[in-house]
């Protein structure tokens, strides 16, 4: 692997940047791996990286049906934060946030993690109390959180509509200053490059079409490139967990829904942080290229269509403009959508399945990107040892039948809970 550095770029300036090696190989799949990870998104690639790096395993493959990072890794709004309310989520996402802080160096790949602050807006006294409760829970669990006054919010984001007669007036906010955004593609590519250099085979255009069983155990996978045997198999296919688990005869507490995002034409800096509002169900940030990145709620009905919907988009834009009226004359240049695994308590599922040697990492709803390092770390532990890591133990698949759900919003057992 050629080391990335400013010096390397300068050297390249003299040779037409001709000295760079491919960031990852394009290997033919072998007939047997100790561990196969299905899904070459950020989570799957991170898992492979940590399996090789931390657990010293050598014979690992990541099987990707299309191109790596092509699912939700490359379709999210790139927000990184750990500002949750419940402890198991604190523990997992904060572990991840700490990893983000060193990820570029760890991977020698600039993932552009930019802790510009992730701010929830409060629109009433009741909101502010709820935000304080969330912030207090975070602080007591060792996570940074600060309440902001109206003035502080306005100073950070001068373009917010601070008028008192707004439909949702801004009374203040809760900021996690260590939160921010990162470059989504770079995360997949950086982990892929790192995993590849440690000997992991990343096999693209290789779709898993079935599982090879020996009694109640999985011993391999059928793919579009033939049968591949494996000691353990880890599913890591956000949005398609239900489909792939279905190939092993499993039904999951997951429904696939479409989540849309959109971006405007690039403009000079105007949004300084990540602005989020739960009353308004939208989140806004500005990319390094200058585009204003927008997201809203999922579609609230099952879909694998990976296509957007004008109704949901127009609502998200209306809400965004209510917050930042100056966005009115910008133009939306692109909209896209991803298929998300909506789990039935809003929290992810990482751990064993009822099928021996088959493991699951999914159900990330619309919050998986920020967890990429932590997801990879804990899933690698689970795949290497066959047992959950302390951080992912609460996120076991059987928590639904046991009644130990991790319901951050308290809205109950369906992704579209009424």
């Amino acid at each position, binding site marked *: 692997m050629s080391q*990335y*550095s*400013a010096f390397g*770029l300068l050297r*390249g300036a003299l040779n037409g*940047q*001709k000295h*760079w090696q491919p*960031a990852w*190989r394009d290997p033919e799949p072998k007939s047997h791996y100790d561990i196969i990870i299905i899904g070459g998104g950020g989570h799957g690639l991170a898992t492979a990286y940590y399996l090789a790096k931390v657990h010293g395993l050598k014979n690992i493959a990541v099987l990707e049906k299309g191109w790596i*990072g092509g699912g939700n890794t490359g379709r999210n709004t790139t927000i990184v934060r750990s500002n949750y309310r419940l*402890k198991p989520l604190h523990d997992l996402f904060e572990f991840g946030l700490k990893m983000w*802080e060193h990820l570029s*160096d760890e991977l020698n790949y*600039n993932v*552009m*993690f930019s802790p510009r602050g992730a701010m929830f807006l409060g629109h*009433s006294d009741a909101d502010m109390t*709820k935000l*304080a*409760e969330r*912030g*207090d829970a975070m602080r*007591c*669990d060792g996570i940074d959180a600060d309440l902001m006054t109206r003035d502080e919010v306005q100073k950070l984001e001068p*373009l917010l509509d601070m008028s008192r007669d707004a*439909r*949702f007036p801004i009374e203040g906010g*809760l900021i996690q200053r260590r939160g*921010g955004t990162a470059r989504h593609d770079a995360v997949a590519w950086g982990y892929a490059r790192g995993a590849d250099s440690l000997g992991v085979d990343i096999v693209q255009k290789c779709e898993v079409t079935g599982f090879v069983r020996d009694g109640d155990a999985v011993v391999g996978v059928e793919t579009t490139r033939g049968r591949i045997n494996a000691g353990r198999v880890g599913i890591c296919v956000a949005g398609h967990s239900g489909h792939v688990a279905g190939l092993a005869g499993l039904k999951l507490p997951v429904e696939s829904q479409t989540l849309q995002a959109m971006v*405007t*034409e*690039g*403009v*000079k*800096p105007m949004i300084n942080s990540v602005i989020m509002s739960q*009353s308004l169900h939208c989140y806004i940030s500005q990319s390094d290229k*200058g585009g204003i990145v927008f997201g809203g709620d999922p579609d609230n009905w099952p879909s694998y269509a990976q*296509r957007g919907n004008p109704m949901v988009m*127009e*609502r998200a834009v*209306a809400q*965004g*403009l209510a917050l930042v009226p*100056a*966005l*009115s*004359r910008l*133009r*939306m*240049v*692109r*909209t*896209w959508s991803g298929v998300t695994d909506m789990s039935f308590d809003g929290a992810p599922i990482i751990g064993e399945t009822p099928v021996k040697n088959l493991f699951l990492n999914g159900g990330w709803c619309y919050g998986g990107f920020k967890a990429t390092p932590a997801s990879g770390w804990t899933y690698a532990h689970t795949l290497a040892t066959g047992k959950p890591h302390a951080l992912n133990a609460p996120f076991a698949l059987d928590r639904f039948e046991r*009644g130990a759900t991790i*319901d951050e*919003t*308290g809205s*109950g057992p369906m992704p579209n809970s*009424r």
Partner: protein
Amino acid sequence: MINFSFDGKTYQAEKGDTLAAALLRNGIGLVGRSFKYHRPRGIMTAGVEEPNALVTIGDGGRTEPNTRATDVFVYEGLVAKSQNRWPNLSFDIGAVLGLAAPALSAGFYYKTFFGSAKRWMFYEYFIRKAAGLGNAPTKTDPDLFSQRAAFCDVLVVGAGPAGLSAALEAAEAGKRVILVEQDNILGASLIRDGQDRDGAWVESTQARIRAAGGRILTRTTASGYWEHDLVTLTQRIAEPGQIPPHGVAQRLWHVRAGQVILATGSIERPMAFAHNDRPGVMLSQAVRTYLNRFGVVPGKRVVIATNNDDAYKTAYALKAAGAEIVAVLDARPAPAGADSGLPVYHNAVPLSTKGARHCLKSVTARVSGLTQSWDADLIAVSGGFTPVVHLHMQAGGTLDWNDAAQAFVPATSRQNVTTIGGAANPEPVFNVVPVSTPKKSFIDFQNDVTLSDVDLAWAEGYRSVEHLKRYTTLGMATDQGKLSNMAALGRLAEKQGVAIPEAGLTTFRPPYTPVTMGLLAGAGAKDAGAHVRRLALYDVHAAKNPIWQPLGYWFRPRAYPVGSETLAQAAMREAKAVRSNVGMTDVSTLAKFEVSGPDAAAFLEIICATTVGKLAVGRGRYTFMLREDGFVFDDGTVWRLDENRYLLTSSTGGADRMATHISYVRQFLCPHLRVSAVNVQEHYAGIAVAGPQAKATLAALIGEEPPRHMSTVLAMISGVPVIILAASYSGERAFEIYVEASHAGPVWAACETEVAKQGGALYGLEAMEFLRIEKGHLVVGGEVDGRMTPHDLALDKMLNKAGGYVGASGLSRPALSEAGRRQLVGLEAIEGNIPEGAMLVTGEGASPQGHVSAAAFRILDGGSIALGQLTDGFARHGEELIATSPTRGQMARVRVVAPHFYDTAGERYRD
């Protein structure tokens, strides 16, 4: 003549000019700077695909950055400014980045700027400042954007000859037709090519379509093709920056079409050669548009570079307009044919251009292997044609490769859409493989992506078309790759050693051209897409100037301050009035359901987790409801009004959720029951009268003995029939009076008079909150947070032992009865005031074991009290804890107690 300004200088335009035409008319070639290297750029096209000539139009709240000069029609007073340059357009300091270009290759930022996140943010600060193009407005948009829905049998997109003919045929066949054209005139290629010079055919066709009832929308772009033949149209009513005549700047149409015909034509491709981006390099058809439509001759000494026949039309048109054609570089081998009268060179492709002072000076080409140069001030290029298949693809269609045209054309359609004209049958071309040159040979002009960037991405393993796009940013500029994607695909296919169709395609995503955000929001931005519901008694409250509190889509009075009272003072005064005398409040927003029929009780025992059937007529009781997973999700009261008629109330915030739940359960879980459940939330307004004098007040109002606690009667107040429920949320003897909302006014007025006679007060939500906390009543969204079981809330003794209610199965799950669950407790301050929302900890630095869900003060006795959730809290009464709020710097020492602070024996309910 029309006056407009560009970078502060005033110029004149002709009527009908686009800004690009007007700038060219005034001899202005340099219009903008590119995104990454700040290279000088001019006008390359005459349409929406323009990558270079981006300007900021208008001022104040109408400022539109990144507007394509080719897609704005000049109006009197138009103000345009160039972008992404400092101090000015012709001398831009940012252009030094061009010198660093060899180091700033594709994805360079992934390979450097390491170190801590803070260090990256330092670099990022400068990168962000350098990125972006125009500045966003900072003022509020003064204009309106409207939205409209429409239906038609046939929607025709594009009013060139094919689209006009199709629309005419459909309209005259009696179909409802909508024809949309993004330009401000119809005709498209007919105008560009001067084929309908007197406009007669376009004019008569247009008139016939209208006469047959067709609707023609110009300046309207079909920007998105969604599900089930829904097409969104964006219609410009005013030009960018222009004051709209009737306040509406743009209109968004949602058109549900029976059939869609796409006559969207094609977009000409540039060619890849060194310095193919400077002002003076223009697409061949654009040159023709400027000549034929606007009467502007964009160059005097012109080189034509082509791989097809179409560009010859440009050569002839230029010649006719008096320009000199110095060379026609035709990539194709010489045909055996007639002399064109032009200086044609076959096997000729352009290699590079030279320029001076931001103008084109000369063109160098390779002609049959030899290099040759010409002085020229314009090169008109035509690299073939890319059919506009965006909408076809958005609709879920597939593409075929048309080898003769070297282009993708529509194949199968998933929706009811067909493509006709040039978009289906592009002109044949000769395939030109771009020659890699060491110098910058641009393929994505706006984002400054070159062929060598594509090559680098390939070498580094970014080999799928999506990786290429994302690694190089190709196709991600405001022109969305309209000019660049095919060139990149060609290069990728060459690298892979496959035919272009095998190299893959990126997804075509809406919108076709960028859409103004204000238009998408429409009127929705005003109320953030969230409507407000008004209380039936809104005017009565508003006249008292209360402090309002938002609650879902409602606003309710939070307190009625007198004089200079603060919220806290007013609320405490109001609460004291309830505790010591009488108060009244508006409870209209509570969810209310009338459940009737022979099986009403059976139905309610499915919805509610408590028993209902044993309730005597005229009696009511507290109840709560479980979700299917066994958690409490709402609570309220249930009243037996009659043998087979019940009234069920539940929380305001959960009203819609409960309405859906009741309907779902009724329809799917017990369709056999003979029951009707009607949502009467807004049918009735509600007034609560509470306090030791409430009974006397009510007696005076209804002229009879008021019902006992938890009893109900029908009565009359001011001649209006009312339902009286003797229920209490405050802990005092209290009555809820329900009246048909349209008749609530007189009832409220009568109550107010009686309460005043008693010396009582109005109270709002804040006082209500104090009262209920002190009494230990639950609130949905507070103590009932969707994660608590009946047992956690100490409600389990009320559960219907017979089971059968929704949630009984969920409740039996093992983890719901394990130790370590959060349980409802009361908290009493030993020191300090308890902050609402604070965490409950055993000591400094300990992990939270619960939290304060609601905090208040004892109303008559003073002292800070609260309700909370605490791990295994039932067994911890008497324990001391700390309620800490680090975010507010507040803390209190608290004692865990039972969650009732007032009248625990319920004596105040007795008469």
